[in-house]
Each structure stands twice: as C-alpha cells, then as structure tokens.
C-alpha cells in the first residue's frame, strides 16, 4: 500500500466500487454524482454532516434504495440491487441503525429471518418445518465466536436483551451471512461507553475474519480508532478520502463541514 499525505492510493483492486451515483427525492438531490471505493480487508469509515447524503449512499449500496444514475460494481462485476434481499444474496450484509430486529422473536429466529433453515427430508420440503436445533446451534456458535455468549438462552425474545446485546445479535447476524462486505450504520450511536467498546472490538473481530467493513458513524474517536481510511462525504458526493493516521480529528471535521478545502491530491483518491 502506497500512502502519501492526504490522498491514499491503493494498489489492490477494490471489492466494491460506485461511480457517478445520483439519487433525487423530488427536488432534493441526495446523491450528486457520488463515487465510492472499498478495498478488501479494510475498515472504511464514511463520515459527513447531517444531510450530506451518507444514508442515501449506504442505501444505494445495500439495496435499500435504487439510484437514479450511476454504476455499482462488486468484485468488478456490475450489480443493480432492487432490494436489500438482492444485496444480501450478493454477499453484502447491513447492520441498520434501528438494527432491523423483530423484538418479539427469539435470537435464533432473528438471526435467520428471511433465510431460515428447513428440516431435511419431507418434514422440510412438504411440511416446511424449520430446523430449530440447527438454527439455534449456528446462532449460538456465531455468538460464541464473537464472544457474545453472555446471552444464556438463545430462544429468548430479543426484546428482553439490553441495547448492547441487541447490537451484538445484529452484528453477529451480519458477520454470519456477509460473505463479501459488511455495512454498519451508526453501530455505537445508542450505546453506553462499555457497550460501545464491545461493539468496536466486534468490528475489529469481523475485520480479522477478512471481511471489509463500511462504518458510518458520527463518533470521531470511534472512527479514528478503527478505520483504515475515511471517506468524507459532503453535499451529496465524495469530497476526499483521508488516512486517519495522517490527519487530525479537527481537520476531518473541518473538511466535513466545509471549513477547510481538501488539498488537490486528495480529490482523486
């Protein structure tokens, strides 16, 4: 990896790229010719002021919204997701800010929501019976793997868990099924100090498994702690990509809010 000053030039091929994404909601342009690059094995933080279009960018990548223009490529191949389901099938998992969990369902049921395992044989194909033991075992394995087995009962309802535990379930779900990319939207926003620490460790754990992560966050200390590169979004497009080791938090905030112009070489990143 060759790094110089602000702009970072990666020698590898990016795993996920977007070029010229545009999304309009009525007369509001949420995405204005935005670009995006994610490289294998990295944590890319996406920061930007409110209304900069971060959410729209993430929605376009995760299939929750269809961009009006532009192209998204996953491992070099163009993709066009029409629903979160299609993005998931392609290997892109998203942990949404509201977690997208069903409170009344159990942890295991939640982890497998939308991709349940059915029993083998006629029980599964004819009676469509769920293979609860298999689902619970895989859910338990995944939670243990991520050091989350403080949860005693895998069949307890998600609504009986604390905020941090719920976040853990959502992250474990993404890590269990994400084969190519994991996107996390404000994973620490609603958490206490201790729980945030656990989630940051989880993020690094997921990275260690070789999965690249897109992290959207308002929390600068968290971003600077775990991110390998920071994508700064401003006015609906990518302003620049910076290296957290080469820039201060206040500079990042200055760039994000427009108080400072990015140097020439960062624009092309």
């Amino acid at each position, binding site marked *: 990896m060759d790094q110089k000053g602000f702009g970072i030039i990666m020698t590898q091929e990016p795993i996920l790229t977007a070029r010229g994404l545009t999304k309009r909601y009525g007369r509001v342009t949420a995405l204005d010719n935005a670009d995006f690059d994610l490289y294998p094995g990295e944590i890319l933080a996406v920061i930007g002021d409110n209304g900069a279009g971060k959410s729209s960018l993430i929605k376009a990548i995760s299939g929750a919204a269809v961009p009006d223009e532009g192209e998204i490529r996953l491992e070099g191949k163009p993709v066009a997701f029409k629903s979160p389901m299609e993005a998931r099938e392609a290997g892109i998992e998203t942990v949404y800010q509201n977690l997208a969990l069903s409170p009344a369902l159990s942890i295991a049921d939640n982890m497998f929501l939308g991709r349940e395992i059915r029993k083998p044989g006629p029980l599964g194909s004819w009676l469509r019976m769920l293979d609860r033991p298999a689902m619970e075992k895989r859910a338990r394995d995944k939670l243990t793997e991520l050091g989350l087995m403080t949860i005693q009962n895998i069949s307890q*309802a998600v609504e*009986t868990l604390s905020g941090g535990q719920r976040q853990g379930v959502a992250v474990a779900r993404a890590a269990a099924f994400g084969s190519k990319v994991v996107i996390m939207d404000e994973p620490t926003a609603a958490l206490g100090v201790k729980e945030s620490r656990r989630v940051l460790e989880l993020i690094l754990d997921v990275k260690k498994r070789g999965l690249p992560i897109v992290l959207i966050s308002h929390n600068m200390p968290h971003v600077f702690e775990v991110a390998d590169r920071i994508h700064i979004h401003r006015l609906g497009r990518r302003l620049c990509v910076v290296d957290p080791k080469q820039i201060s938090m206040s500079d990042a905030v200055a760039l994000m809010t427009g108080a400072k112009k990015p140097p020439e070489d960062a624009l092309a990143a």
Partner: protein
Amino acid sequence: MSQIQEFEKVLSSSDTSVAAFDEHGKSFVKRAQHFLHSTPAAVPLIVLVLSIIIFGIAIGGRFFSSYTLTLILQQIAIVGILGAAQTLVILTAGIDLSIGVIMVISAVIMGNCAITYGMPTILAVIVGLAAGGACGLLNGLLVAYMKLPPFIVTLGTWNIVMATNFIYSANETIRDADVDAQAPLLHLFAMSFRVGSAVLTAGVIATVVLVGVLWYVLNHTAWGRHVYAVGDDQEAAKLSGIQTKKVLITVYALAGLIAAFAAWVSIGRNGSISPSAAVTDYNLQAITATVIGGISLFGGRGSILGTLFGAMIVGVVSMGLNMLGADPQWKVLLTGVLIIGAVAVDQWIRKVSA
C-alpha cells in the same frame, strides 16, 4: 484488542456485575409476568379453566356433563374458525372487518352453485372457497400495494361484500330440506359422533384441527415467523429481507379462504343458507374471541391457541349464564369486561423487561 481510548481506561476497574440477574430476588409478580410473556396462551387458558370452575360450582353437576361441555364446543365452532382467520390478520397489526360477510357470501355462493345452478357439490364448495379467497386477496392487495390502513380497506370491503351478497342472492334463503336433498355434502360438518353423552360434530373437529394446523404453521415455518415479524415491526422485517407485501397479501387471502371454510361449516350448523345472516355480528364475535385470547391488537404477539380458548371462554360464559337463567344482557356485559381485562393484561405483559 482495540486501542483503548484515554477516557475508557477506567473501565477495567469498573463494576462488572451489571448484567447479573438475581433470579431469587425477583418477586412472584415479576416471574409471573415473564412466564406470561413467553407463554401468551396461558392467560386465556387460566381464565377458561376458572370460568368453567366458577360456573360448575354455581350450577352444579349439570354444567360438568360432557353433553353441556361439547354443546359449548358446537356453539363456538364458527366463531373459532373466524377467530383463527382474524388472528392471522391481527398478528400483522391489521384488522379484518370483512371476514364475517365473506363467510356469508361464500355460503350463499356454495348454495346457489350446488342447488340453483345444479353444479356438482364438490365443485360448488371449491367455487365458494375461491370466492372467499378472492375477497381476502382484494383486501390484501389494497393493504399491501395501495398502503391503505387495514381498518379502512376492510370497512369498505365489508360494505361492498354485504351489498353484493344481498343483490346477488335477492335475499332468498335456500331451505334446509333442499340442501339435504340436492347437496348433502354441504351438510358434511353437521355430521356428529356420540361418545357417551358427549356429542362431537365434524365442525368442532374441523375447528380444532384448523387451529392446530395454523399453530404449527405460525410457529414452525418461515412464513409463520414472517407473519409475526411483519406485525412486530414492518420496517425492520423489510430490511431483514422479508417480502412484507407478499406476507400481507397471503395473510389476507388466507383469512378470506378460512372465512369461506367457516361458511361450509356454518351451512352444516344452520342447515339452511340465509343471506340475511350478513347482519349477524360474526365479525365482532371473532374479534372478541381473538382479543380475549390474548392476541395483541398492535401485532406480532399472541398465540393462536389463545384465540380458541378465547372463543371457548365466551361460549362457557354464555352457556353458564343461560343455565343460570340470567338476562342475556349479562353475557354482553361480561364480554365487555373480559375484552377490557384482556387488553389491560396484554399491555402489562408488554412492559416486561430483562
């Protein structure tokens, strides 16, 4: 692990016992709340057993006779089936005001097809079931794609179906004797079995089997879990990759189909087929059974077994008061109390926290 930040250094010395539960310290009430939270059919079952005991003591052995108890089951069969249909819809946080009249129009269509048009009875039944399913499908499409509130959609279809029923049938009743003579299959669910003094009709057995099948589907298939997830939080369900529109459409269509099945059972129970049954409040009775059965009107919570118990509670109360010779209005009054009590209990159980 990750680089710990300055302000977090103190964490290592902080109290680590926050997440520990003290099971023994929990009051009985708290534990009861937890139990009821995880076993939603328990409340209606307890109420059902209590009401049987209370009326048993008040009336004496007469009430406990298997004849009386099975008679109650016969009386609640139709409301039980309609309640099962209503349960599916209410679990998705919706409501279906039209299933009562869907049942009536389906019965009229079955009768007309078999007797007036002289179709083979089995074909007439299929046409009736299809008509009920189609009405439900219309509800589902309007709720899922037009995104209209279920209350409004089904209030509309309730009126539309009721009017269609009267226009189509010219309010002519098909007589019991004609059904018996030309289409005895329509009376299939009137078939009864005697076990001692207990009388079970095919309609009662069908009700129990239907609820059993739906219980299995709701708890042990992906579709069933999706019904709960959609009712719990539709947005979250969608982001989890559930095709929420498909779930809603199938739920309303299935509710319509079950209502048409209730039509077949009702022909067995009533003998004749009367379009004016559309003015009977089957629908509110079904909603009452569902609510007393502990199905949350806010969606996503409750067990369909509760609905069956809820219907039985209403049956036991009305039979018990009947046998005591009470004014029938007492039954209405008590039903009202049960409804409010059930919803209050539901709210209390919802407040459960870890």
